[in-house]
């Protein structure tokens, strides 16, 4: 039976779908890129937290009648500042600071949404995403945010890597680690805001984290992780978006499920790779990924 190409390209006959595919690919790639640094910082919770925090800003901007992006951006940046400051000034670990600040931000949104006079527009889209309702303005915002993120990572890569790996020594070597962390928080906030309309605040964390942890399981090389994470993010977003057209599922949730699937595939791959390196020391069965250097010996 011949493959019906018309059937395969059917979604692209619709302008709204083509735009949604482009937007989801941009978000997937950008989240994949940023996710690597978040995972390596051991702050995976920040993606989840920040997406919830900006919900408060979105509700407030709706109530006071200002542009959604302006309100959410101010709120997101303030949350990032607050987390950085709490972490720096008090002996409170980053995960605890993220938990309190971002959940409180989300709670303010929920509180105002239920007590406010003005009904919130697109409430469901914010929580669960509606990529098909993405407007031209959203598209432009997402495009700008993707470009800013790539430029930031490109020029700050060395400082970011040094700060994440060994922040104390980075400080000694003249890296302004607080500025780096602040800029990173701001970039994360605007990426979250760009993605929240399409993927939704409750689902976004996986889109940020899943490509990065999948890539991390596949390779130990930093640049390969970056490239792989972006590719996985793009593939997840494309497949999620594309298949949602045929199975009539919510696009945000479908993208996230593809993200989770890519993680499962990466786990299987990593396990198989480990089995390949299985070897014996006497009667002890043993597996590790490193080669034996001259000085490296271990006993069982």
């Amino acid at each position: 039976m011949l493959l019906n190409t018309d059937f395969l390209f059917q979604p692209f006959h619709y302008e709204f779908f083509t735009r949604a595919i482009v937007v989801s690919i941009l978000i997937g790639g950008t989240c994949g890129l940023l996710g690597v640094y978040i995972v390596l910082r051991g702050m995976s919770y920040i993606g989840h937290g920040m997406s919830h925090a900006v919900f408060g800003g979105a509700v407030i901007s709706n109530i006071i009648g200002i542009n959604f992006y302006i309100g959410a951006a101010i709120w997101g940046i303030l949350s990032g500042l607050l987390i950085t400051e709490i972490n720096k000034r008090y002996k409170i670990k980053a995960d605890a600071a993220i938990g309190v600040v971002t959940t409180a931000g989300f709670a303010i949104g929920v509180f105002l949404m239920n007590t406010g006079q003005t009904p919130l527009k697109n409430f469901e889209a914010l929580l669960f995403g509606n990529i098909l309702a993405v407007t031209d303005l959203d598209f432009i915002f997402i495009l700008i945010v993707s470009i800013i993120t790539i430029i930031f990572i490109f020029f700050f890569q060395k400082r970011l890597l040094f700060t994440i790996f060994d922040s104390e020594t980075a400080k000694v070597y003249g890296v302004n680690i607080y500025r780096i962390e602040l800029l990173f928080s701001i970039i994360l906030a605007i990426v979250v805001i760009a993605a929240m309309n399409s993927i939704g605040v409750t689902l976004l964390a996986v889109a940020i984290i899943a490509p990065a942890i999948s890539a991390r399981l596949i390779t130990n090389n930093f640049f390969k992780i970056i490239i792989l994470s972006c590719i996985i993010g793009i593939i997840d977003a494309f497949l999620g978006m594309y298949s949602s057209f045929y199975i009539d599922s919510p696009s945000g949730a479908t993208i996230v499920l593809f993200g989770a699937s890519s993680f499962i595939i990466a786990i299987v791959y990593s396990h198989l790779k480990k089995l390949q390196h299985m070897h014996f020391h006497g009667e002890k069965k043993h597996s590790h990924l490193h080669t034996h250097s001259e000085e490296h010996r271990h006993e069982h």
Partner: protein
Amino acid sequence: MENMESPENIIRLKNVLFGYHYHLPVIDGVTLNIPKGGFIGLLGPSGSGKSTLLKLIVGLHKPWEGEILFAKHNNDKDQKFSIIGYSPQVEGIDWDFPVTVRELISMGVWNQSGVFPWINKTSRIEIDNLADELGIGGYVDRQIKELSGGEQKRVFLARALIHNPKILILDEPTAGLDNANKDNFLKILTDLNSRGITIILTTHDIDGVAKKLPWIVCLNKTIISQGIPNSTLSENILYRTYDLK
């Protein structure tokens, strides 16, 4: 800008007082002159303030009282980090972190290796040459976890050395090494010192390290004693340094 009183001293600490909690000083009135080209070991038990003193010198902490002066340099941050090579204790390092030996060493020249995310050619050559010199040349493309303990220590030494500092500040650089590796590492440091690099390191190992250094400073919040190992590592001084009755 305040210069050193003696041009022979590269660092001078004057009555330095510092702590992490109010009224609980970890460093209490330390006055210490580090001569240019010196090789000094700070010896003391855990919690004696050795690492804190190093962090004060490299500028990670500011003294509550007293001052730390550098020869021909004020405490300007930019000037200071260009003359200091610092290596922290590696116990807190995430060895699973996906960086290669070359990438780790390149962190020491993050501001000289080009604005792009990759290392420029000049820095790459310098890194590879230094790695060769320290006996880790064959491993530059390996992930840091794939190295032995001795090799890992040398990688961190290479990061501290790559920008040609005048002063090397090393926190417990030989901790966790067996005797042969300790001796090898000390041999490398002695060689660097003979080329004019001032070295300050911390250790809690009396026999394996302290006895083999040219100058020892016994520290326990304050300086208990200092001098050559033969005279400094006496029973009385060690009892006082280690709070033994």
